């Protein structure tokens, strides 16, 4: 070889494959304002739909008078439940096995519920017409407290199923009760609790919040009556599932429906569900024969689509005097709102809440979750987390802190002595999961050293003395979290949504000149799939990522998949991509062997080529092989170079991480300042470090928002109090701290490239980290537990209750 011949390392680098901080291919269009989001779609003759919504949380709908609205020039139609009933579309199935009103059928069950759908020539006329629809309501008693749902005389919310003693997830004991879900060994756990040296008990509330992506939900439905084909553009995190659901609900054959997710302006779980707006837009397009757009306002988004959390988690944790945990018990009261519209796999009505044993080797555990109806919006989506994992992580990370207080121990040390050890993996948890891989002690030690944990504790102690001496009014809190996630749903044997197995897919076509297109069943909402999936493929098939187009989101062209949420894209579709790439490589090997006139087994893959074993100067590059696949008649081998893989993961993946933050708390005003944040993530094999770091920054900032102020709040009669971006807390660049990121790498043993997924880790681990820091600041004054969000007045209230205001 001469000096000009690139080394294998140089060739590998030029592929921009795994491990490359490749710049994103999406950015050229986004930075120029040339993205194509749903509200950018403007079809000929397009109409605009808007909802008349209920001002009441619980009321009978006495009458709906559309006369004045219909008389307004430019108004095409006003739909009510009466109009949808003949089509059987006034109700729709939810992802959780319940059903939900599309338009109010006799009553409304939450403030902001959809009552009528106005269709007009443009959005301004539609808004004018909404004002003109006259609705008469009879107010009913409102239920907002899930603990009062089964009280004597509690109003019955769901009259449609009041008598049903069996729900989608087993027996119901009350008309306002949805399900009880039990996991683990109740008797054994209670026995351990009864005999333990120490039991810490606490109610941990994870408040109601909302994913609130910057782009709201919306769609454009276009029924082409000439060819009988419905095209539905929309903000769908799962376009293929939407097509199937749309077909089942509407009766239109699935091949006559094309669902397209264009660019999506953030999802975070908000865009997984099916909303009344989609159904109404479809019906309106069928009725009018014109395309109909529906895009929610920000206020509508916060009022009606996809809340998250709202779990009241009563916990008991048992341990020896030395701090070894012996058992964990949890009873959760889950406020689901008016309809059970959680987006969880069918067999998991409380999602993966049973990951609540966390990162700890806990021999026995029990979990029960009661789902309850209230007069609040439906939802219960996984807001930047995998199906209730953030609730579980918050629960266990608070219980560890509460136990540390009870034991008088340092919470970092308590974690260390209870971690699952590296030699215990694969580890079977007491609540039924098989953790794939981990090295928690190494990660924890690295994190504690990075922040000089001992130094921080010394500084905190000094600050406390100054506080007690009246020299400062600011306390210092140190927030610790070690979280384990469960992502990548999931194995078809136990994971499905509406009967659709949670596999995912990739289809690859190599073009004759050696470039390629890959299509996947997922859909990016900012994660950078077009960049990173090309990197996976580049490393697998030796074609530069720059020569690979990645396409998602069009059900007419992409292979079927279950979409993007729950950090499943890398674990499932990423695996499908690698497996499809390996099929390409296998065929390429045969072609290479033919071209090199050797046996298949005598060539081996070398970065971007196949070489003859022992004779590296004899090789065929992937580009040469691709061309040969299209222009040579090779005996026994079909022309072309394509592959498709549908990947059913054998297990979930279990990313983990160690987060530490430092907060200053002004006890007089409740103002808090996160002055340091260190995040160590282990997401297995790292595909694009730049994108991983960006995901961590973003997830931490969403966690900051949730922990420190963001909530969906109602008053006692069900009025929504946080429907603008002034009251629904989203921090600006000014309130957001600077983050330090770090990592360890423990590949997943069952994933083809060892990757685990990372997008949701920072939210799952960030929330308890921020919250623990606030709690920690007040620990010397006797605080064991207070509820999020830790906004100014609640922090002040904590200080006040602890007597810190003199």
């Amino acid at each position, binding site marked *: 070889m001469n000096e000009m011949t690139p080394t294998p390392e140089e060739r590998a680098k030029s592929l921009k494959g795994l491990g490359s901080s490749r710049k994103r291919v999406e950015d050229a269009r986004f930075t120029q304002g040339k993205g194509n989001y749903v509200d950018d779609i403007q079809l000929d003759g397009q109409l605009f739909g808007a909802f008349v919504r209920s001002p009441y949380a619980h009321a009978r709908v006495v009458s709906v008078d559309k006369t004045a609205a219909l008389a307004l020039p430019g108004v095409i139609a006003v739909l009510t439940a009466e109009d949808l009933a003949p089509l059987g579309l006034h109700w729709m199935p939810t992802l959780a096995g319940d059903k939900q009103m599309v338009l109010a059928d006799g009553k409304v069950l939450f403030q902001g519920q959809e009552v009528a759908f106005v269709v007009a020539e443009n959005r301004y006329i539609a808004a004018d017409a909404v004002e003109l629809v006259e609705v008469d309501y009879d107010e009913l008693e409102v239920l907002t407290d899930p603990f009062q749902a089964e009280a004597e005389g509690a109003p019955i919310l769901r009259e449609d199923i009041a008598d049903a003693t069996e729900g989608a997830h087993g027996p119901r004991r009350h008309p306002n009760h949805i399900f009880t879900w039990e996991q683990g060994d109740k008797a054994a756990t209670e026995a351990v609790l009864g005999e333990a040296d120490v039991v810490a008990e606490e109610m941990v509330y994870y408040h109601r919040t909302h994913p609130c992506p910057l782009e709201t939900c919306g769609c454009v439905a276009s029924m082409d009556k000439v060819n009988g084909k419905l095209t539905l553009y929309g903000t769908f995190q799962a376009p293929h599932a939407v097509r199937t659901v749309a077909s089942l609900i509407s009766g239109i054959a699935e091949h006559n429906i094309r669902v397209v997710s264009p660019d999506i302006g953030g999802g975070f779980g908000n865009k997984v569900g099916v909303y009344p707006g989609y159904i109404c837009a479809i019906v309106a397009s069928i009725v009018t024969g014109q395309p109909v757009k529906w895009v929610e306002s920000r206020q509508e988004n916060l009022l009606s689509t996809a809340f998250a959390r709202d779990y009241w988690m009563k916990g008991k944790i048992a341990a020896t005097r030395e701090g070894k945990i012996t058992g964990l018990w949890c009873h959760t009261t889950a406020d689901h709102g008016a309809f059970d519209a959680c987006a969880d796999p069918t067999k998991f009505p409380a999602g993966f809440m049973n990951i609540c044993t966390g990162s700890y080797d806990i021999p026995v555990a029990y979990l029960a979750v009661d789902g309850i109806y209230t007069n609040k919006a439906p939802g219960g989506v996984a807001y930047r987390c995998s199906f209730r994992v953030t609730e579980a992580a918050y629960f266990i990370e608070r219980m560890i802190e509460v136990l540390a207080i009870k034991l008088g121990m340092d919470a970092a040390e308590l974690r260390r002595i209870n971690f699952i050890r590296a030699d215990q993996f694969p580890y079977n948890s007491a609540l039924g999961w098989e953790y794939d891989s981990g090295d928690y002690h190494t990660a924890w030690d690295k994190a504690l050293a990075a922040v000089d944990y001992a130094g921080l504790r010394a500084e905190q102690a000094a600050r406390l003395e100054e506080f007690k001496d009246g020299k400062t009014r600011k306390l210092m809190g140190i927030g610790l979290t070690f979280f384990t996630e469960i992502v990548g749903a999931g194995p078809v044997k136990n994971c499905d949504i509406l009967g659709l197995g949670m596999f995912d897919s990739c289809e690859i076509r190599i073009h004759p000149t050696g470039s390629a297109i890959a299509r996947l069943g997922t859909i990016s909402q900012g994660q950078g799939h077009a960049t990173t999936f090309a990197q996976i493929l580049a490393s697998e098939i030796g074609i530069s990522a720059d020569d690979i187009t990645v396409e998602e989101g069009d059900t007419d062209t992409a292979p079927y998949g279950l979409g993007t949420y729950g950090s499943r894209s890398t674990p499932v579709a990423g695996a499908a991509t690698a497996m499809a790439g390996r099929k390409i490589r296998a065929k390429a090997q045969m072609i290479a062997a033919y071209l090199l006139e050797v046996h298949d087994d005598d060539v081996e893959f070398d970065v971007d080529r196949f070489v003859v074993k022992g004779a590296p100067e004899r090789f065929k590059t992937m580009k040469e092989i691709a061309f040969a696949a299209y222009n040579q008649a090779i005996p026994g081998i079909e022309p072309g170079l394509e592959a498709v893989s549908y990947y059913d993961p054998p297990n979930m993946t279990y990313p983990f991480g160690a987060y530490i933050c430092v907060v200053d708390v002004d006890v007089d005003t409740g103002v808090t300042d996160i002055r340091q944040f260190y995040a160590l993530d282990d997401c297995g094999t790292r595909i694009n470090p730049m994108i991983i770091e960006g995901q961590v920054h*973003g997830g931490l900032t969403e966690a900051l928002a949730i922990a420190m102020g963001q909530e969906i709040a109602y008053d006692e009669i069900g009025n929504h109090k946080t429907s603008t971006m002034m009251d629904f807390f989203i921090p600006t660049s000014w309130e957001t701290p600077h983050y330090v990121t770090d990592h360890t790498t423990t590949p997943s043993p069952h994933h083809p490239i060892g990757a685990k997924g990372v997008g949701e880790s920072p939210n799952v681990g960030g929330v308890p980290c921020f919250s623990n820091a606030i709690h920690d600041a007040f620990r010397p004054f006797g605080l064991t537990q207070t509820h999020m969000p830790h906004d100014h007045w609640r922090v002040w209230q904590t200080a006040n209750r602890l007597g810190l205001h003199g």
Partner: protein
Amino acid sequence: MSKMHVKMTVNGKAVEALAEPRTLLVHFLREELKLKGAHIGCESSHCGACTVELDGKSVKSCTMFVAQANGADVTTVEGMANPDGSLGVIQEMFREHHGLQCGYCTPGMIMRAHRLLQENPTPTEEEVRFGMAGNLCRCTGYQNIVKAILAAADNLAAQKEAAE
């Protein structure tokens, strides 16, 4: 209520149209002029996704009637690329430093960053964070946006120095 004749300069070109006075500037740009870079996020002037430049100020086009912008000189993100079509410095630095994810807030961020750097060509990190506080992002946590703007400031300064 009648439509009015609206004239303005957008990205250096004179435009004229009939519009209802109540039409919000962001809808006029997006639906009448088909300039879809300005996005609608909060509708209450908190998020800044609709930020455009108007007569040398960065403004939230969701909280301005087209009638108010009659006669104005408007620049949108579509006017921010170099004359040869390549990415402008701020756009390039957002790409280089991963200052965007879903891209929805990005046009507003770029327009605001443009004005910020016009007024303060050598900002500190703190000044960038304060000056960008009218723009919300749900994806990035701002850190790389701040980094991109600081890098753009350095690049623009180097360009200016080279030109002198």
